[in-house]
């Protein structure tokens, strides 16, 4: 059997640390996740099986990966200062996504709000020092969440290009040296009771499109007035808990705001590329596992008394699937490199229209291929396709939401049209 590592990626983009990260995380995946992942669906509420696996990946007693972005002098690994931060993120997303995309998103979303204060050139030392002990010294997995979506707006908050934050209903009011936050958020990854730190997009002037009125404020979950609802029951993605989040007169120090007027809107836009590259990594990882399962099935099961893979028509179909995985992996790393070029003379800032449009475009493409190929692979397995023991159906259920999140397919299409066709009103 060819190895999953034989799928191409632009090797000259890859971090010198890639090999080490990959081998350590893959060993954790094979030991802690693969043997149990078929039982995760029933564990969606309690995380009895899932939580110890997260501890072994994220916490100090395990690999300690939750501290990766923090500066080394604060107890972290300093990846926020790396020229390969996006590429390494793609690698991690791929490796964990191969086993379970929900685990991948849950652990990587912990980094998501933190990128705004830990990744060059936007390091906020005071906040980094404030939150470093929470992540760098814990023997338990610590989850952070980016609380974007609100009941009334769907993907409107992600659509900053058009709406400029005017639909945000969660308010932040300065009272002396504290922010007072009120609002209701839905669906953030790492809520449903597990979140310990939230990055909360708010408005300081409801209805405003002025970037100066957009605030990104960090709120620890144990602050008075923060309420997390229980986890939603979903079609899949059991390792990722989502729920309602309420802020009722929550008071946090005024310096818990990420950067301040104007800059918060900018770093919030910069969050989106991280999510898009991560999404592609999750999907490519899942598709690499699809290949592993499919390889075994088409080699050992027959049609016309010959292995499925030796039938020309079926070979055409599975060949297309493998070809798509190859292309998607190359695209995912190209997307990661677009992110890592941000500080280079030939790169573009993460908040630029160009980066947003191109990464949304890539994510849309990879999502479409993944949704199509997992559905097709289930049909190749036929009567065995819906069986959880074959693992493809779990990925099929899980990856659909990757297509739906962050504004979904249609927002990707709009961003691409705006950029490539100079649309003015979309």
């Amino acid at each position, binding site marked *: 059997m060819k190895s999953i590592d034989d799928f191409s990626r632009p090797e000259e983009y890859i971090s010198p640390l890639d090999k080490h990260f990959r081998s350590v995380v893959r060993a954790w995946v094979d030991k802690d996740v693969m043997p149990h992942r*078929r039982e995760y669906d029933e564990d969606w509420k309690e995380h009895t099986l899932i939580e110890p696996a997260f501890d072994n990946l994220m916490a100090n007693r395990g690999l300690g990966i939750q501290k990766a972005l923090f500066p080394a002098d604060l107890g972290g690994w300093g990846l926020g200062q790396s020229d390969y931060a996006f590429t390494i993120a793609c690698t991690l997303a791929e490796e964990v996504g191969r086993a379970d995309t929900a685990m991948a998103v849950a652990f990587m979303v912990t980094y998501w709000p933190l990128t705004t204060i830990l990744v060059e050139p936007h390091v906020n030392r005071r906040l980094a020092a404030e939150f470093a002990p929470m992540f760098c010294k814990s023997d338990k997995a610590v989850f952070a969440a980016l609380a974007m*979506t609100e009941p*009334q*707006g*769907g*993907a*409107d908050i992600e*659509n900053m290009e*058009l*709406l400029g934050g005017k*639909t945000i209903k969660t308010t932040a009011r300065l009272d002396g040296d504290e922010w007072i936050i009120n609002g209701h958020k*839905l*669906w953030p990854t790492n809520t449903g009771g597990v979140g310990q730190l939230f990055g909360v997009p708010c408005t300081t002037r409801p209805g405003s499109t002025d970037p100066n009125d957009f605030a990104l404020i960090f709120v620890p979950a144990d602050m008075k007035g923060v309420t997390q609802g229980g986890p*939603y*029951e*979903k*079609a*899949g*993605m059991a390792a990722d808990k*989502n729920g309602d989040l309420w802020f009722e007169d929550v008071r946090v120090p005024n310096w818990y705001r990420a950067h301040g007027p104007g800059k918060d809107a900018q770093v919030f836009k910069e969050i989106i590329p991280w999510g898009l590259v991560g999404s592609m990594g999750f999907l490519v990882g899942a598709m690499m596992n699809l290949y592993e399962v499919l390889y075994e099935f088409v*080699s*050992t*099961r*027959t*049609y*016309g*008394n010959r*292995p*499925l893979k030796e*039938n020309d*028509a*079926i070979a055409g*179909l599975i060949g297309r699937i493998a070809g798509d995985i190859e292309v998607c992996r190359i695209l995912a790393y190209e997307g990661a490199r677009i992110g890592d070029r941000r500080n280079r003379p030939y790169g573009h800032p993460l908040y630029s229209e160009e980066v947003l449009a191109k990464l949304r475009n890539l994510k849309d493409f990879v999502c479409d291929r993944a*949704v199509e190929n997992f*559905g*097709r692979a*289930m*049909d*190749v*397995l*036929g*009567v*065995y*396709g*819906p*069986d*959880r*023991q074959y693992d493809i*159906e779990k990925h*099929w*259920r899980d990856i*659909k*939401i990757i*297509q*739906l*999140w962050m504004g*979904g397919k*249609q927002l990707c*299409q*709009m961003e691409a049209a705006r950029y490539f066709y100079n649309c003015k009103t979309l």
Partner: protein
Amino acid sequence: MHKPLDGLFLSTREHIDEEEQRIVNTVRQWADREILAKRLTYLEHYEQEFAGKRGMLLMEIGLQRLALSEENGGFGWNSKASAPCLAAVLMEIGRADAATAYMSALQFTTILASGADGTSPIDTLISRFYSTDKPVNPALILPGPGSQDEQTPLFFGRSINARLVHEGDSAILFGKNMRPAGCGALADHFCVVCADSAGKPWIAFVPADAQGIQRGNILQETGLNACANADITFQHVRLPREATLEGKETVEGLYLWLNLFLGATSVGAAMNFFEIVYDWANTRTIKGGSLMKENPLCASVLADVAEEIAIARFLTDDLARLIAMTASPNGPELQNVYTFAQIVGYRVQQGAMRAVNRGLELMGSAGYAREWHAEKHWRDIKTIQSYLCGVGAEVPVKMDTARFFFDCREI
């Protein structure tokens, strides 16, 4: 949702008379009152909750006897002429719950595929299966993937993994770890495609209490959760000879009915998905206040949803009419209809699946949450689609099609 579905998704139903339509309407009332109106209460353990509702449908309304011959105490919808009304009934059930419809689809398939005419021994035997005062669950074991180390008899390329040996007036069935298309764990009887020592296909009708049947563990599957599945082993299961039917044409007939009935099931589920998306698009706003359905891009996605369902329903209704108009159950036109049933069956499942996939794009996370019920239709239809493929995705159907239209001899 204020427009009636029949007014939106037009169909050609002149083959359904008033009395038959009354039964279809009764099933619709059952769906509306017993399932759709109470859906939120079924969020947990619906597969158990629905058992009582299915019992009402099968026993009180009487659907268990719908496809049995009048001679055997049924409603007499046991001929090809009944294809349109049976499909219409399944659409109504599927709209409420695809798993419930799926089980009825398997029941109708086993009865109709046996060529039940009210007088033959096989008809009497099948009728006995269903003439009880409790719901009866059938399971189908179809040709599918073979194993690398075994040469099997084939049904148009698909491996027939069960063996039938004739001994005097008996037939003896063998098969190890056979994977049913759903319902294996709860089946009261099995309809098994098997092959004799010469490789000729047969269908065997096997009561689940026959000696020599072993069930594996309950499988966890994507959807159709009320149709608990398990692998089945037949170890020297002795059957009366009249419990078997001979010939490739019989198996073609089985697929013909299966494609129709599973098509109707998925169309029904997709129509309820349409109702869910309709409500969503009529109440959700985007871009800071515009109604979702009034945005041209979203509207084009909504159009895809409606278009796929409308075409799938047309195709299903047309297949039903085609079957109804076919003169002889095993005549020369059967292969024509078999091929069309395969083509239509594949297209209908593909269309229903695409409709749901597209609609989910607009529902975002809500489409993925159990609360909205959209994801259940998505999982159920996908499960039906994969079951019906059997193995190799659409390739076996493509081969059937090419063989028919282009006289291919070796594929």
